[in-house]
């Protein structure tokens, strides 16, 4: 199950809280110790488990192609910026394409 690491349950390894409110890891720890500690933590961002295989594959295809970009944007928008109205689907698409093709996106 996914849950945010809180100040309380991460307290053992904390020395400070950074400006952004995120906990700061004790940097004096040896890297092997840190990896060993984190080995019990399985970190994942958007992966969804316990889905039937085909719907998992479909999800991956949609995310890979950007087909579900607008739904993800709406979900993200609702948590990060609930006071302002989100962009319409078409405007979001145009904005996103403009954004994407303003940097180096394709190689030789």
């Amino acid at each position, binding site marked *: 199950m996914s849950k945010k690491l809180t100040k309380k349950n991460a307290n053992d390894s904390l020395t400070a809280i950074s400006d952004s409110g995120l906990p700061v*890891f004790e940097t004096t720890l040896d890297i092997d110790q840190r990896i060993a500690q984190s080995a019990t933590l399985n970190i994942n961002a958007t992966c969804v488990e316990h889905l039937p295989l085909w719907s998992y594959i479909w999800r991956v295809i949609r995310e890979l*192609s950007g087909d579900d970009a607008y739904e993800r944007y709406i979900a993200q928008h609702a948590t990060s910026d609930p006071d302002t109205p989100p962009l319409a689907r078409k405007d979001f698409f145009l904005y996103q394409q403009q954004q994407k093709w303003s940097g180096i996106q394709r190689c030789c």
Partner: protein
Amino acid sequence: MKNSLVAIFAWIAVAVLGSAALGGIALNRGESINALWFITAALCVYAIAYRFYATWITTKVLLIDPTRATPAERLDNGRDYVPTNRWIVFGHHFAAIAGPGPLVGPTLAAQFGYLPGTLWILFGAVLGGCVQDMVTLFYSTRRNGRSLGQMARDELGAIGGIAALITTLFIMIILIAVLGLVVVNAMKHSPWATSTVAATIPIAMLVGLYMRTIRPGRVLEGSLLGVILLLLAVAGGGWIEHQPGLRELFDHPGLPLAWMVIAYGFAAAILPVWLLLAPRDYLSTYMKLGTVILLMLAIVWMQPSVKMPALTQFVDGTGPIFGGKLFPFVFITIACGAISGFHALISSGTTPKLLSNERDIRMIGFGGMALESFVAIMAIIAATVLDPGVFFAINSPAGVVGKEAADAVAKISSWGFPVTVEQMNLLAQQMGEATLFARTGGAPSLAVGMASIFGSAFGQGMLAMWYHFAIMFEAIFILTTLDAGTRVGRFMLQDMLGNIWKPLGRTSWYPSVLLSSGIIVAAWGYFLYIGVIDPNGGVNILWPLFGISNQILAAIALCVATGILVKSDKLKYAWITALPLVWLIIVTSSAVWEKITSTDVRIGFLAAANDLATKLASGVLSPENAAIAPHLIFNQRLDAVLSLFFICMLWLIVFDMLRVCVRYLNGKPVPPLSEVPHQLTSMVKV
């Protein structure tokens, strides 16, 4: 304990299998060899390098820290910084790095035989390219996804930053020109190929309109529609080929096609992205992935025989496709697929802003490049399953083997690669083309190779379809690279021009857009034009220049990485990037040296220019050749200056890196490490 024993035995088995396959490939002489050995050797090399070398680098040298919050997590804004599933990031990263380069370079380098290219692709990738991509991705991730140029400036100084920026702009221009040349050579006098490639433009626009207006943002629906239309266009091209009156509309020599590509490039650069660039990129990505998977399945299923010898006599520098000895030119010709500096721009661009955890760096950086290297191996297989005589007949320019078919086959057969006019005519007829002679550039021979593999796997009756499908597939993502490259070049130029006069820097100001797009298109259009009028095919000149500039960009990325390693007190591990760096310095410096000083007119830029100037002065040239000679002479001299400029940039940044390292080791002040301090990740599952 039991599991680890099983693992040890499994890895020993992989190592034994890999060495056997490699040994078989390397020691085989005189007989044709099953292509499956190439696939086996490649997969074993990648697996071992990934499991052991990449793991060692990430855990012992880079000290990947899974508890550390990535920029995507810390700066998550739902737009450019977004924590993303690692398979999705892998897909985006691979789609971005794998372009037409790994298909064209190995095909050209097959003139040396199958062995040099194969070994360089495998070992260049795992020791050079994969390490470069992974290390750059790591350092950029630790620096909020900063670009290579910014990292060079922060870690080494202003010189490094400027060198990286200028080299990037130049390599983009050369890259677009050479890719444009590949497309032009594939469409030359081929109504089928030309009409199919032309049809991709309205199809992409239709898809663009669909995704914007009819069903906004429904990317999959639009792409499916587009892919179906593209396949229909391939079939429709075959119909046009047989329609008198219609076929002439699409039957053109090289020069008008080059002007069309140039006009198209300018139009694509100033049109809104949603109309042409974005939808075509969706189509080319699906085509690319689909074709690569299909090609792999067909090779595994059909197990075609590689007929090219391990080494040909052309290792001595007399090769018909491009002049120059095995060293250094095989390492220049195959850049993408072994080590490609361009990847460092992707690894320090979008990808680090999507990583949800540093743990994924090994898979995305190292694994992504290993997969591209595998694509290059498949390209070398597709080129070498052809009869060598056929391979050379398709790829040798008319200036080397003669304009008449009889002359060409006589010359090629005299090299010990028998081929007949009837054989070539039959092949051209099977592929639905008027002729396959002198189609320099790699795309047609690759398409013939792919068509024969697909044909034997899925039925011979469709050879012409497969051939034109392969041409369309290459053209579509070459044109995507051309659009995208022109656009990025435009932004970089606007950025520079903005320093001179502010309004020129505004990316949405139309006069500035027109001006900067025009300059970029004129720059690559010039090289494309010269390449097309050059009777020696142009690829002979442009591809080495592209290889050199791409490898120099790689060397710049490795300089930045080596500098950071030393400044992070990891001098004893600095060889992981310093070793490929030293190799690239040796390769590019000797290639540039030969390109400038060689007295062989097929290698040395200046030798060729002087030779042509003498001929022009003594009046031995035919009137048509005399008319273009001044252009060719100027171009050869310009190329000499350009390659000298590239190599000076490289040495400048190498000395800058060494200066910073020596100062650091002597305890003198250097630019501080710009790494962002550690923050604990909060995206944790217990």
